[in-house]
């Protein structure tokens, strides 16, 4: 259960966390300035378990992982968007930040809605208006990485070949 925070289309990595703050890789430090220009109240008042609801092409721009790390550091439960920028998608999976592609949910959710997400099935429930949405399932190898909590943890106990095995 968490509150929805909505963001616009083409949210780029500089808007998620401006380059000048990327001098640290500490998730909690980065989280202090996440969305500081587009939605400063997010970092101040969000609660762990809240949900980010983004627009099309979420996370476009730089390859820097500071952006998904900053969001993970803020303890958001997951990001729901109609589509993600390519590198952001990989980065989020690699660091174990759950992301769900679901255009229907994004179109229907408004800021402040109370959202329940089942990460393993992709089911999203909007407690505020009672609507239910189904996110696209993630490919098997992506789930393997997500289940391990990120690629680093996966590799501690597996060989890279196991990803596609």
């Amino acid at each position, binding site marked *: 259960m968490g509150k929805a925070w909505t963001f616009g289309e*083409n949210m780029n990595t500089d808007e998620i966390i401006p380059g000048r703050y*990327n001098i640290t890789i500490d998730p909690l430090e980065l989280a202090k300035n996440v969305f500081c*220009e587009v939605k400063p109240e997010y970092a101040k008042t969000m609660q762990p378990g809240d949900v980010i609801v983004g627009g099309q092409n979420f996370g476009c721009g730089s390859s820097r*992982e500071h952006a998904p790390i900053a969001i993970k550091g803020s303890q958001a439960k997951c990001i729901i968007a109609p589509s993600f920028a390519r590198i952001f998608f990989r980065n989020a999976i690699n660091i174990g930040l759950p992301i769900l592609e679901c255009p229907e949910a994004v179109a229907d959710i408004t800021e402040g809605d109370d959202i329940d997400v089942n990460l393993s099935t992709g089911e999203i429930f909007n407690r505020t208006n009672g609507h239910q949405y189904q996110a696209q399932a993630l490919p098997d190898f992506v789930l393997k990485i997500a289940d391990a909590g990120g690629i680093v943890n996966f*590799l501690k106990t597996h060989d890279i070949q196991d*990803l596609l095995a």
Partner: protein
Amino acid sequence: MGTLIEEIFSRRAGKQVQASEILLLDVDYIMSHDNTTPLAIKAFRDIGKPILDKNKIVIHFDHAYPAPNVLAAENHKKIIEFVKEQELPHLLHQGVCHQVMIEEGYITPGSIVIGADSHSNTYGAMGAFGTGLGSTEIGVAWITGKCWFKVPETIRVELSGQAQAGVYAKDVMIHIAGLLGMDGGTYRSIEFSGEYINNLPMHERIIFPNMSTEIGAKCGLIAADEVTINYLENETPATGPFEALYPINPRYERVLEIDVSTLTPQVACHPDVDNVKPLTEVEGLDVHEVYIGTCTNARYEDLEIVANMLKGKKVNPLVRVIVTPASDRIYKKALKNGLIEILMDAGCTVTGSGCGACIGRHGGILAPGERALTTMNRNFIGRMGSPLSEIYLASPATAAATALTGKITDPREFLETIF
């Protein structure tokens, strides 16, 4: 059989592959820089396994170098200690990573190179697969020598005709970004082709794969040909034989045909790279800074265009005109041939090579309310400093014309000095 990316991946996989397959492939080089290496080191240490092949690792100092603050200095220190500890052979600080990768011969046709930098797509100019990844995957690749890829669908961009005087590859690419949009190439490979591309020299070709990143592409590719092989043989230490791959009976998701002969100078306006207008629509807009630099447009030939236009003239004294050569090699050639003197005499500030003002760390940060016209590839809000500043993207010739007047100016007004 297939598109250029299918050909490149098939050769590496040792079997015929097609779009949408997921592959685990060996990579040739793993690139990272001062901004992204610290996180790769962290991932590497967390996993706790040894490096597979040190020779594949290439680390550059370019993003915030020399260090503009203590935190950047700490990053550099951390990286140098790691390089010493692991005895890594390739630590370079001689310019923007992508330019240095190409001019030092790390990129050859058909090679697969991943980089912890979104503009690693640049390597596609050599007929290689280059793509940007996050630092964690770079740390993973140091250990495994491999990376997973989904074979992308391909959009082919066919460029025909000859550009008018004053219109450059940068104008053409900005125009394409406007047509396809910021997410028009997401998850896709973009093949740039056609008679216009075939006739372009390498320094202009590089712009297309470089800015394929701006439209979300996984890679931007130009099939290697004689121009590529000549460049490799004459300008880089790379040794052949080079195998040029090209599409064979390809199936494209989409083909975009563009005749460049009617195109006029273009500008990507604040705040999005696809907010593209013909220059004539924004002509006369005041600028506070002109920045000529980056992996997109600070090669020798770019500096030559600017120097030719500024020779014997003075830039507007109210405008900060900053020139940052893409690499030391370019800087030295420009120095030897008198370009640096011309630029300085005209009132430009010439800085050491590297990313310079591109990411708002040093070397030309913008104040609130300021507007820059630059040869960069990206105009995100706040990229060069204050979130209340504006960035306009254009060709080096447009940048030079604008430097003279202090307003966005059509370079065709100076055609007699354009070569």
